[in-house]
C-alpha cells in the first residue's frame, strides 16, 4: 500500500466516523387529540386508535402527554372531559386547533430532551385567536417538531368522511397544516379512509427526532 492510499483510507475512516449517527435522546411527545364535534364518528375512533399506537411506539425514557382540543385546550387522561362543557356544544362546537399547537409548542422541555407534537385532527380550525403569521413565527422559533395526522379536506366527500369511497387525489387545501409541519421539520400525513396506517412512518419520525439535536 502506498503512502497516498494509506492517507486516503485514513481520511475516509475519519469521515465515516464523523458521519456516525448522533446518540439518541429521549423525547417528550405531546399528542394533540381533536375531540371537536366535526370529528365525531369513525374518524374520531381512528384518531383515538392512533393516540394509542403512539403510546406503544415510545421507548423507555420517552414521555407522553395527551392534550385534547375542541373549544377548550387541556391536558387530560380522559378525552371525554368536553362532555361537561356548559352550555353543551351543538353542531361542531368550535375547534382551537392552531392555538392548541401553539400552546403545546410553548411548553418547556428539559435540557437534553427533544419535543415532538403529534396532532390528530380533521384539520378544521374555527376559533383560534393567534393570527397565521405569528403562529408560524412562534412555531419556527420553538424547538418542537410537529407531525400532523389528519384527514385531508380535499378527501372529504360527504358526512365528514364517514362514507367516502374510492381513491382521490391529495387535497389542495391542506397548506395551512403543511406549513406548520414544514416550519418545524415535521410531516403531514393524510389518513383519509382508504389510506393505510402511518404508524411506521410516525415511529420513524420519532426516531429521527431522538437523533436530531435538541
Amino acid at each position, binding site marked *: 500500500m502506498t503512502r497516498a492510499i494509506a492517507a486516503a483510507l485514513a481520511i475516509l475512516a475519519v469521515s465515516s466516523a464523523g458521519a456516525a449517527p448522533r446518540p439518541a435522546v429521549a423525547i417528550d411527545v405531546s399528542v394533540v387529540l381533536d375531540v371537536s364535534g366535526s370529528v*365525531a*364518528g369513525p374518524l*374520531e*375512533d381512528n384518531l*383515538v386508535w392512533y393516540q*394509542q399506537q403512539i403510546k406503544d411506539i415510545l421507548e423507555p425514557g420517552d414521555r407522553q402527554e395527551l*392534550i385534547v382540543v375542541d*373549544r*377548550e*385546550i*387541556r*391536558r*387530560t*387522561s*380522559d*378525552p*371525554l*372531559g*368536553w*362532555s*361537561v*362543557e*356548559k*352550555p*353543551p*356544544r*351543538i*353542531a*361542531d362546537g*368550535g375547534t382551537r386547533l392552531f*392555538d392548541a399547537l*401553539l*400552546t*403545546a409548542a*410553548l*411548553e*418547556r422541555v428539559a435540557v437534553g430532551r427533544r419535543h415532538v407534537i403529534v396532532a390528530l385532527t380533521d*384539520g*378544521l*380550525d*374555527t*376559533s383560534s*385567536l*393567534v*393570527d397565521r403569521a*405569528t403562529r408560524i413565527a*412562534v412555531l419556527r*422559533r*420553538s424547538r418542537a417538531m410537529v407531525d400532523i395526522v389528519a384527514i385531508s*379536506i*380535499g378527501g*372529504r366527500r*360527504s*358526512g*365528514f368522511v*364517514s362514507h367516502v369511497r374510492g381513491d382521490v387525489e391529495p387535497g*389542495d*387545501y391542506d*397548506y*395551512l397544516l403543511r406549513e406548520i409541519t414544514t416550519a418545524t421539520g415535521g410531516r403531514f400525513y393524510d389518513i383519509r379512509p382508504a389510506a393505510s396506517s402511518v404508524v411506521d412512518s410516525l415511529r420513524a419520525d420519532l426516531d429521527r427526532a431522538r437523533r436530531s439535536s435538541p
Partner: protein
Amino acid sequence: MTTTTRLLIVLLSSVVASAGARPRTSLFDEYQAHDFARFESDLGATSDFPALAAEAQAVSSSWPADAGAAYLLEVAAAAMHGEIFPKLTGPPDSHGERTLSSFAGGPFHTDLRTDWRALLQASEQCISRMPPDAPLARAWGRAFMALLVGASEVSPQTGVSVVVDLFERLPTSTRDRIDDQAWMMARGSAYEAVVATTLSYDLPALLGDERAGSDTRDVGTNYPAVRGTLVRAFNEGMKAFLAGMSYPDTRAEAAVHLGSLAMLRDQPGDLVFALSHFELARTWHPDPDVLYVSWVLEGEAHRRLAETDKATDAFARAAALTPNGSAARLGLAVQAFLAGDDLKAGQLSQQILDTPAGADDPWILFQHGDYRHWAQRVDALRKALQ
C-alpha cells in the same frame, strides 16, 4: 296478592317495558306539570328523537300553545346536543385509560339532520297560536334565537350555514315573536361564524367543486364565488351589529363583535376601527365576559400592529379578569416567547393546559353569541310558563 296475580303483574311489566316503557306523551306531561327535574332526567336518557319528532308533528296542535312551544324547543335542543354525544363503552385500555369506542349519532352536521328541524317547526307552530307580546312568546323568541346561534357553523361540504339559511326563511309568525335586539345580535353572530370559519380555513367546498383547481390561487376565499359569499356575510354581520349597538342591553357586546368582524377582514384601517370599538364598548360597562373579550381582542389587534407593549398590557388586563382565560394567557405567552422569555411562556402554557374541563374561556363562549346564556334562557322560558 296471589302468586298468579304477581306473575301477571311481572308479565305485564315486561310487556310494557319491551314496548318502550312509558307512553310517549309522558315527557310532555312532566313538562306541563312543571316537573322539570324529572323531565330533564328522562330527556337525558332518551335517544329516540325521531319518535318524539313524529309525535310532535302528529299531536302538538292539540297541546296548549305555551307549554307545547316551550317543551318542543327544549326537546329540539336535546336532539341537537344528543346526536353528537359519544357513548363510552368497554373497559379501560391496556394503559388504564378510558377510551372513546363509538359515537352515538350519525352525522354531526346540523344541515344533515332532520329531527331537530321537525321539533323546531312544531314548536314554531305552537308559538304562532300565542299573542306575539305574551311574556312566554318573548322568552321563547330569545331562547329560540340563542339555540340557533349556538348551532352556527359552516359545512365544509356545502359551504352553507344552516342557521343563516333558517334566518332567511323564518316565517313571519315566528319573527314577530322575537325582539329586534335578539334578532339583530343573533343574525350578526351567525354571519360572523360564516366569516370566521371561512377565513380560518379558506373553506374550499364553497366552490361547489372541490376539484376546481390545484392552484391555491384559484380556490378558497380567492375564488370569486367564495369571495362574494364572504363579503355578503361580512356586510350582513356588520349591519346587524350596528343595529345591535342601538339597544342599551346589547350595545357593548355589539361593539366588540363589530371590532371582531373587522379584525377578521383585516383590511387597512380595520384594526384601528376595531380598537376604537373595543374602547367604546368598555365605556358602556359590559358584563365581565364581554369586558374580557374586549381586552383579548385589543391585545391581538395591538400585536398585529406591532405595538408590543400595548399588546402585552391588554392581554395582562384580560388575564387578570378571568382565572380560566386561556386566550389571554396564550396571548401573553406568545408575547413573552417572541421577546425571548421562554420560561414565562412555558409557565403560561402550563396554566392553559392545566385548566379544568368545563372551565370555558369567555372568548369561546362569546363566539357562540347569546347561546352562552342558554341556561338562563331556558330558565326564563320555564318561569314564563309558570
